[in-house]
């Protein structure tokens, strides 16, 4: 695949494509020709609205707030777009994992390529260029309700525009976006034109990026679990009541989650949208930035992990029993992870708090739901590491190290030392081997 390009058109992007693109399994990601033509066509209408005798079209040629009834000139839009991301770019706490923010750039490029947003194809190509180079906006983790990830996506818009204060992560370095672009021979500044900031910020694309990795991690962890069970069951199967039924239920429920996340990849979520009418386009205001279903399915994912965790714990209990209590430290540490997973199952989507002086009076908290799902998956990964540690210890005691190595041939850990450190080493191994993504990655100097 390395020699082929992945083309996006706004209608066909899947979790699988995204993961492949992030891993560099495609040469690059490009805008598909028909999608480009669609964007050019709707953009031409925006240009007409920017003409001197055009009507006032809210959200297109106007400002916001007090300026909402005033038509702005193309030059005024350019000026405005140099500062309007700043007050939207809220964020505190740790930096989100750069893999996530970089991915949000790709997802958003795909959304815009549907053509309803009326942005220039060059904007989409700029976003893809940033993605293809492996550049990730530096975005702090807290501050988004998920009814539009305005804060995180304003950071993205700053990077795309090459605003002076925009920051990125590139190959593990935390640096200014402009410096990064210069180093790579890219345009350091990309002037954002009319409608191009709002079209990047409106919608919940950072939530979507987190949801993508929640799905990816879940798929990988289910695979890891299957492999560990193969080790445990090789000589004498460990039969646990109803396990097959729960596995099947989790699999079916996960299909709903994956279908929903895939569907949400290919929607339009900004405002206003341009729809073709007889003599050009009409701009229509709506609220497709509400990604209700994504918040719900991220909460659902947490429920599934909660049920799964019981079974992993039962395996560990059985192993400990067989070993006459020698695995007690593993058992207790694992049980704490099970409790963490259970405590994380409180749904984020059942809450909503009115914001923005009651104008945004219902929010999804889907961003929180997705973050929490990813945290629960990280706890689940840790739990599986303890299970594999238990299997490894048992193996070692029985002087039969081949079982684990048959399934995980490149697992190279010290089985004689501390159980907790063994689990930690296994956890690192799984992260690398299966490309598991956590919400936060601590980097030097942050």
């Amino acid at each position, binding site marked *: 695949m390395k020699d082929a390009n992945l083309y996006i058109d706004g209608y066909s992007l899947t979790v699988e494509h995204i993961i492949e693109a992030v891993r560099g399994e495609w040469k690059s990601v490009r805008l598909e020709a028909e999608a480009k033509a669609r964007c050019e066509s709707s953009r031409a209408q925006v240009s007409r609205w920017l003409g001197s005798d055009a009507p006032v079209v809210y959200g297109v040629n106007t400002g916001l707030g007090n300026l909402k009834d005033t038509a702005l000139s193309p030059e005024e839009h350019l000026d405005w777009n140099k500062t309007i991301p700043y007050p939207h770019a809220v964020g505190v706490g740790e930096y989100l994992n750069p893999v996530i923010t970089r991915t949000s750039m790709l997802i958003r490029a795909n959304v815009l390529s549907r053509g309803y947003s009326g942005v220039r194809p060059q904007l989409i190509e700029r976003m893809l260029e940033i993605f293809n180079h492996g550049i990730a906006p530096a975005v702090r983790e807290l501050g988004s309700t998920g009814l539009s990830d305005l804060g995180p996506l304003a950071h993205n818009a700053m990077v795309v525009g090459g605003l002076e204060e925009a920051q990125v992560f590139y190959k593990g370095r935390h640096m200014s976006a402009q410096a990064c672009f210069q180093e790579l021979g890219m345009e350091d500044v990309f002037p954002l034109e009319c409608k191009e900031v709002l079209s990047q910020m409106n919608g919940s694309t950072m939530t979507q990026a987190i949801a993508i990795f929640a799905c990816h991690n879940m798929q990988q962890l289910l695979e890891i679990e299957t492999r560990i069970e193969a080790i445990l069951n090789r000589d004498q199967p460990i039969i646990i*009541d109803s396990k097959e039924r729960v596995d099947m239920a989790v699999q079916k429920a996960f299909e709903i989650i994956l279908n929903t996340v895939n*569907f949400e990849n290919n929607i339009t*979520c900004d405002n206003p949208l341009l729809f073709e009418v007889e003599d050009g386009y009409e701009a229509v205001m709506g609220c497709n930035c509400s990604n209700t279903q994504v918040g719900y399915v991220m909460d659902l994912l947490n429920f599934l992990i909660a049920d799964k965790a019981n079974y992993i714990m039962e395996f560990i209990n059985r192993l400990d029993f067989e070993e006459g209590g020698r695995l007690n430290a593993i058992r207790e540490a694992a049980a704490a992870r099970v409790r963490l997973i259970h405590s994380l199952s409180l749904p984020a989507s059942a809450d909503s708090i009115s914001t923005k002086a009651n104008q945004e009076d219902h929010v999804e908290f889907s961003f929180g739901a997705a973050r929490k799902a990813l945290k629960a998956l990280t706890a689940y990964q840790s739990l599986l590491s303890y299970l594999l540690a238990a299997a490894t210890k048992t193996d070692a005691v029985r002087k039969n190290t081949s079982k684990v190595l048959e399934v995980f041939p490149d697992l190279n850990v010290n089985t004689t030392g501390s159980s907790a450190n063994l689990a930690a080493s296994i956890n690192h191994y799984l992260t690398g081997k299966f490309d598991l993504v956590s919400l936060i990655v601590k980097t030097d100097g942050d």
Partner: protein
Amino acid sequence: MSASLQLDGSNLKMEDMAAVLAGKIFKVSIVKSHSQTSERSFQQSDLPTKSFGEQGEGFLDSLRDWVQSDGELLPKEVGLLSLYLLLNHSVKHSDVLSDGLLQRVLLFVNHGIEPCLHKENRTETSAMSELALILYGEEELLCYHQGQFKAVGSLFEELGLTKLQYTREDVAFITGLCCVSTAMSIYAAAEASRLTKTADICVAMQLEAIRGETGAFDRRLHELGRPYNSQIEVAENVRRIIKDSEFTTERGREAYGGDNGPRCQDAISIRAVPQTHGGVRDTVKWLKEQLDKDINDIAEKSNPLIGYLLDLVIVGLIDLGNISERRSFRLLDSKMSYGLPMNLVGENPGFNHGFPVIQAAATAILAEMKLLALPNTAFSKIDHITRKYVCTTLESSLKMLDAISLLNKILGIEMYMAAQGMDLAKSKLVDFEFGIGSKEALHVFRNFVQTVKVNRFASPDMVAAEKVVTDGIVLQAVEDIVGNLK
């Protein structure tokens, strides 16, 4: 003449279940399947059978161990739905079951006898044991038949029935099945659908009251922009209900004079209705799609997937409460309602208090609803003693009943306040017309709750408004005018 239904173990439909819920009594017959599972035995089944060392009364005593006949009852339809599911599943295993059992269940469904199960039987085994005891003829248990509750003893006497002779297999079979949680889920999914449609009606009434902007319901935003079917359906429902409305137009807004210039967009709780109500509908849809499969493949011992989906529907219903409560809230404030009187006071403000405390009740009930959000699934476990998986699906379905009951009240308050807002708007624009569905909604609602002009005991009005929602009275009236809502 009643419709007939021939069950073969694989042909039960959700429409049939909906018809039973609506009170229809089918003439049911069964076709025994040829490919029977005569190899299987249910003797190894769950706990109750363990104590079945002897024939006869021994079975019954162990069933009785599991059944509490005290406290509140489940909705009576649940017992009858459970029997349909039991019958449909029994057909597939009729070679190991006694003919008496099948004939007894058939007799119950054909007479429309609804076993009344007690809420306190909070595990599937307990609930199914109660069902089994009712079929047997346990005298002090209850059924609902021909419009009244009857003790099983007197019902059997009335119908000339004798006590059922169970075999060991019969009892093991019944108590190992998940009929009650499946029936509860069918009931709850139907209730959830009623609530999602009712919420769409509340929004339409709200739009009339605040002369709302309808662009957010534009077909293209949904069909082209974010084409979830559920979202498309909600926007369509609202458009159909407000069809021909003169209030929700620029002309209506200008004439009323509550806006400064053209209305750009309404607040999120109104303009995000297709997306949010649509998301809630999807949770219900996912549950129904799974139930559609499960009704012909009833699970033995545990049905975790239904539990996960029920837990998620509860989240969705709470979210429907979230957004409804915020819409009610907006009606209290003249600025947010674009010029309706402060607190929706009918006349003489200051002396008359209006709706602030009524609205605060919706907030309080919402907080109560949020306490239901913690998923029961998080408490499923593997029992330390028996090493069996403890499935929580029935418990999720019981909690869902609470969620439904609370949401009825929250939507009742929204409808009560939106109706008041409509009357107040109409009093200023007497020559303007409401949409065809919203006009009917107001008209019918006023048969139960009058416009509030002076200080009046709030609680009876709130209870009446809740009943209008719970019984689907306004929903039915609106559907009679605009056709079935999606």
